[in-house]
Every structure is written in structure tokens, then in C-alpha cells.
């Protein structure tokens, strides 16, 4: 059976096993229809509320006249909500003329920032200026953690985006200090039930909820819950480190990683643990990640026939996890340095990918330098040679080399152990062996009647 046929069978098997839950889903949703408000409905609802206030205002008009209504709308109605997230989260509500109606500190840190200030009636620019100043003074925005998220919420998307862009520029200018520059993320949101629920559940702003949701959408390994405790700087580092561009977020400047050891040091830590020089490592790559409550660098590279995976503590530089995997694929990114490793001890060389070449495994000391030079895989000196593995299997099977046919040897990794997988036929039997490549012991053998 070829790959395609097998794939089709797998597809068929899975397709057949799918239960039908469509009716259950529809029933579930129609039962809780009151809760489900899709955006188009939401807008209608708002207009309806708008009508009521309109009618209410119209009654006022009878007494005060049209001017009164306009003054009401211009002066007291919330037009945009702006939120600033660093770790302190502050919400500012402004009217149509960008005059501040109220400033709400949303957490303990934010209370410190707004302490003693009254912005009511002042210009949004003035308020933002004062708040950023206070965050700098109180050490919330520093060289080590320089990111801020600006979120504008306005029913009129276009107006929201214009205000967002203006504020981002202003804040960026305010964060150009003598010692460091800031990093400003900005976005416009249209509030919806899901974001509202998330922000209520986790006690964060709608803005931060949307930012986290976008990062989660880009990287399925993250969950919303896991990212909630992170500061904006850490979120900014995560999204910029993995080179993901968040669709609805504009970014100016770059997040500070000065609190961490940096990509360079992380790579050095991994390489020195592996005992490999930077010049020998192929496709060296590091990116920041967040796992089990701490920031880490994930470092990956190839050397010889192995793929190395490291997790380095982003603050201490400690090696948290190291993995060395046999990489039996020749598919490698940019393997410029590959195949030049002639300094590997040669007497244990084997061509592990020898696949279908029958029993002509190139072993022995004479062939080694040639095979490494031509890009063949050379194997770590701590493994037994393919020839030795073959002899182990043959002597266990009690057959001589001249009696076997369709001999095949491959190196593989099973349950964390590097093994030689050996198949051959002899007489009416097919033999399968798995030999531990380090100890030479037989892990598994099968003898089957071959008809």
C-alpha cells in the first residue's frame, strides 16, 4: 500500500467515526439565544438605545430647545474609551470633543498612577501626558520594561483608528527619554460579548483581552488563561520574538529584553551545554517563549545528524531542558556547515540512511573520511557500528551472512533510545531486530514465517 492509499484509508476511517452533533449545537444556541448577540444585532440594539435617549432628549428639547440637545451630546456623552495598559491599567472616557469625562484606575498600580490627579474636563492630550509622566516617575515604564498598549474603543471604527494613531504617536514621543525609548502597541476595538466576558472574567481591560486573544490565535500552543498574568512588555516580546505580526495591532519601537539575558547569551548557553561551537551549529535559531510561568528562550540547532532543542531560563540563563534527537531526515534548513565534520572519530562511522542498499553497508575505517566528506551522516563515537549491530543480530538469529537477503539497517530513535532497526530474510523467515545503539543489546526481535 503506498502513502496515498494509506492516507485515504485513514481519512475514511476518521470521517466514518465522526458523530453528528449539528442538531445539538443548534438546539444549544437557540436555547440561549438571548445571550448570543452577533455584531450586526448589537449595532441595532445600540441604535435603539440611541433612539430612547434621543426621545428623552427630544422631551428636553421641548423645554430647552435644540441647542440643549447638542450640548448634551457633545459634552456628556461618552464617545471614545481609551485604555492604557502597562501593568497599571487605566481607562479614560472622553466625549466627542476629546474632553475627559472620567478616568478609572482598573488595578492597584493604576490607583498609584492617578493618585491626586483630577482630569475631568481637561483635554485628552493633557491627561495622557500627565498619566505617562506619572507612570515613568513611578517606575512602571522603565528601560527594562518599556511597552505600553493603547486601545481605543469607538463605535465609529474610522474615528477610533484616527484617534488610536494620534495617541500612539503622542505617547511614543513622550517615551523618548534620555536613557531609553518606549515601545507602543496600539489597536482599535469594537466591543463585543466575547471580549467583554474575557475582560470581566480575568479582570483585565478589553484592550489587553484582545491583544492576548490575537497572540493565542497566532500561536495555538498558548492559552488565554496562561497569558493573562503577563505584562504588556512580556506580551510584546512574545509576539515580536516569534515574528508573528498581529493583524489588528500597530507597533512602534521594540520591546525591551534588557530584563533577560538576550538571544545571543541564550544561544551561547545552549551551545556550551551541547559542547558545540557556534560555527559548527547549523540553522541556529532562538525565540522567546513563555512556559510554566516563566519566560524562556527556545534554542534550536542542528549538528551532525542531530537536532538539538533547548529551553533556557530567560532571566538566569540556566538550561531548563535539553533534547538531542536523531534527525534521520536530510531535509535541513541552510546546511552550509553540514558534512564538514571530518574531525569526528572515524572508526565507528556508518551510513545510517543506507536504506535499500542491501547488505553493502559501508563500514570499516578505510571508508570513513570519504563518506563524511560527501555529506554522509557520521555517527557519534559512543554508538556501536552498524556492522557490529548486524553481527549481533546475525549471531542471535543463528544465520550466516551468506544466507541472508534483503538486508536493511536504519538508525532510529524509539522511546528516547537510539536503536538500529535491522530487517533481513533468511530461508523462509523474516527477521526484525532492534539493537540498542549505545550498549549493543537486543531490545526486540521478531522472527516470522515469510510466505
Amino acid at each position, binding site marked *: *500500500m503506498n*502513502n*496515498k492509499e*494509506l*492516507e*485515504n*484509508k*485513514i*481519512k*475514511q*476511517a*476518521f*470521517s*466514518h*467515526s*465522526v*458523530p*453528528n*452533533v*449539528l442538531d*445539538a*449545537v*443548534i438546539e*444549544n*444556541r437557540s436555547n440561549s439565544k438571548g445571550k*448570543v448577540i*452577533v*455584531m*450586526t*444585532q448589537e449595532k441595532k440594539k445600540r441604535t435603539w438605545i440611541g433612539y430612547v435617549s434621543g426621545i428623552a432628549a427630544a422631551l428636553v428639547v421641548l423645554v430647552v430647545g435644540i441647542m440643549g440637545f447638542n450640548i448634551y451630546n457633545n459634552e456628556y456623552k461618552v464617545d471614545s474609551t481609551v485604555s492604557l495598559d502597562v501593568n497599571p491599567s487605566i481607562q479614560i472616557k472622553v466625549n466627542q470633543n476629546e474632553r475627559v469625562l472620567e478616568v478609572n484606575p482598573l488595578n492597584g498600580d493604576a490607583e498609584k498612577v492617578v493618585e491626586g490627579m483630577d482630569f475631568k474636563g481637561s483635554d485628552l492630550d493633557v491627561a495622557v501626558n500627565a498619566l505617562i509622566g506619572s507612570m515613568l516617575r513611578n517606575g512602571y515604564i522603565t528601560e527594562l520594561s518599556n511597552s505600553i498598549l493603547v486601545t481605543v474603543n469607538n463605535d465609529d471604527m474610522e474615528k477610533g483608528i484616527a484617534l488610536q494613531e494620534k495617541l500612539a504617536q503622542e505617547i511614543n514621543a513622550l517615551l523618548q527619554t534620555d536613557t531609553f525609548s518606549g515601545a507602543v502597541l496600539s489597536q482599535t476595538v469594537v466591543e*463585543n*460579548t*466575547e*471580549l467583554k466576558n474575557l475582560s470581566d472574567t480575568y479582570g483585565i481591560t478589553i484592550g489587553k483581552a484582545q491583544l492576548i*486573544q490575537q497572540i*493565542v*490565535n497566532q*500561536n*495555538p*500552543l498558548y*492559552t*488565554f488563561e496562561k497569558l493573562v498574568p503577563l505584562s504588556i512588555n512580556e506580551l510584546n516580546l512574545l509576539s515580536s520574538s516569534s515574528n508573528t505580526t498581529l*493583524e*489588528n495591532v500597530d507597533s512602534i519601537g521594540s520591546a525591551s529584553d534588557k530584563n533577560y539575558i538576550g538571544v545571543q547569551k541564550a544561544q551561547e548557553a545552549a551551545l556550551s551545554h551541547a559542547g558545540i561551537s557556534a560555527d559548527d551549529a547549523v540553522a541556529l535559531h532562538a525565540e522567546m517563549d513563555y512556559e510554566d510561568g516563566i519566560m524562556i528562550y527556545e534554542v*534550536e540547532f542542528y549538528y551532525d545528524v542531530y*537536532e538539538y532543542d533547548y529551553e533556557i531560563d530567560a532571566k538566569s540563563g540556566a538550561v531548563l531542558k535539553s533534547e538531542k*534527537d536523531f*534527525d*534521520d*531526515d*536530510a*531535509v*535541513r*534548513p541552510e546546511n552550509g556547515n553540514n558534512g564538514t565534520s571530518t574531525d569526528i572519530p572515524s572508526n565507528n562511522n556508518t551510513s545510517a540512511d543506507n536504506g535499500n542498499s542491501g547488505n553493502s553497508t559501508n563500514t570499516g575505517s578505510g571508508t570513513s573520511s570519504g563518506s563524511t566528506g560527501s555529506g554522509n551522516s557520521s555517527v557519534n563515537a559512543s554508538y556501536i557500528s552498524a556492522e557490529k549491530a548486524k553481527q549481533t543480530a546475525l549471531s542471535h538469529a543463528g544465520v550466516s551472512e551468506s544466507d541472508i537477503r534483503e538486508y536493511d539497517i536504519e538508525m*532510529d530513535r524509539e522511546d528516547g533510545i537510539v536503536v538500529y532497526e535491522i530487517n533481513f530474510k533468511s530461508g523462509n523467515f523474516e527477521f526484525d531486530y532492534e539493537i540498542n545503539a549505545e550498549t549493543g543489546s537486543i531490545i526486540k526481535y521478531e522472527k*516470522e514465517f515469510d510466505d
Partner: protein
Amino acid sequence: MLFLCLTSTNEYGPVKDNDLLDELIIGVANNDKEAFNLLYEKTSVSVYSFALSILKNAHDAEDVLQDCFISIYDSASEYRSYGKPMAWIITIVKNLCLKKLRDRKKEPEPLSDNTDISFSDNGSVTAEDKILLTMCMNVLSDEERQIVVLHAVSGFRHKEIAQILSMQLSTVLSKYNRALKKLRKNMTKGEQDV
């Protein structure tokens, strides 16, 4: 191997009708029941299979299938990943599965044997399907199974799978090939036993 990689990435496209799926999701956002039905029809196999490949339990996978479409129904209006509808849906599945796995840990009673999967609820599973499904659950590692399902069932390219599962492309390719090899080996063994 390189040759194999090139042919396999070209041969199978991702779920082809991205534009259609985009339209359907927008339709769902506008309360279009027909769009929802069609979206379910087009994507439920991928959703369920991926969930099953992670959870190894038919009952839990069915829960995720249901929750996923409830979630799609509720959040279609926030859909912005135009051009990548399947990646969006698969992300939802993945998050629901992770939640399910977390919930499992909290459950006091020990888990029933994961590998004992009952397909009896569904009449269309043949004896051959059953053998292959059980083999996928028992013979393949978690990662191998997820890769096989994303490629063979949902039609994702290896490159896309590398992104979805945050793996190197070379790792995905080698795991995929090893997985098919394992399955094939077990199938011939099964035939010989019979």
C-alpha cells in the same frame, strides 16, 4: 527525502475552499443558518479528528466537536483571519482540547483506559476503519498521530502543520514518514496474523 518532501507538499493542498469557508463564517456572523450547516458539513471531520488525535477518547472528542461549533457560532463575528479559516478553527479545537486535558487532571477518579475507544455509536465505522483507528491510537505517538490527522484527514501541508504544532518542518516530515511506516508495518502484521 528532499524529493519526497517536495512532492508531498505540492500534492495535497490545505482544505481547498478557503474563500468559501471565509464567506460561510461571515454568514454565521450574520445569523445565516444555512451557512452554519454548510460550515459544519465542511469542517466537522477535521475538527473531530484533530480532537480525537489529541484526546484519544471518542466521548471527549465529541464534547470538543460540540463546543467548537458553539464557539464558532458565538465568535464568528470576531473572525478576522481571512484566508486562513481552517487555522482559526484548528486553534479553537486545540484550545478546547487543552482545556479538556486540564479538566481531566482535576477529575478525582482515574481515567478509563484511553485506548479503549468505542465507535459503536456510529453505524458507518467499518471493521477495517476500527482496526486502523485503534492502530492510530495505540501505535502512534501523540505527535505522530496529530501530524498524520492534520495531513491525511484535514489536508494541511507539512509546512502548515509545523506552524500549527510549533515544530521544525524537518521534524514534522520525519515524524510523518515514520508514522506511516509504523502503520504499514502493523497492518501487514495484522494481515499475517489473520
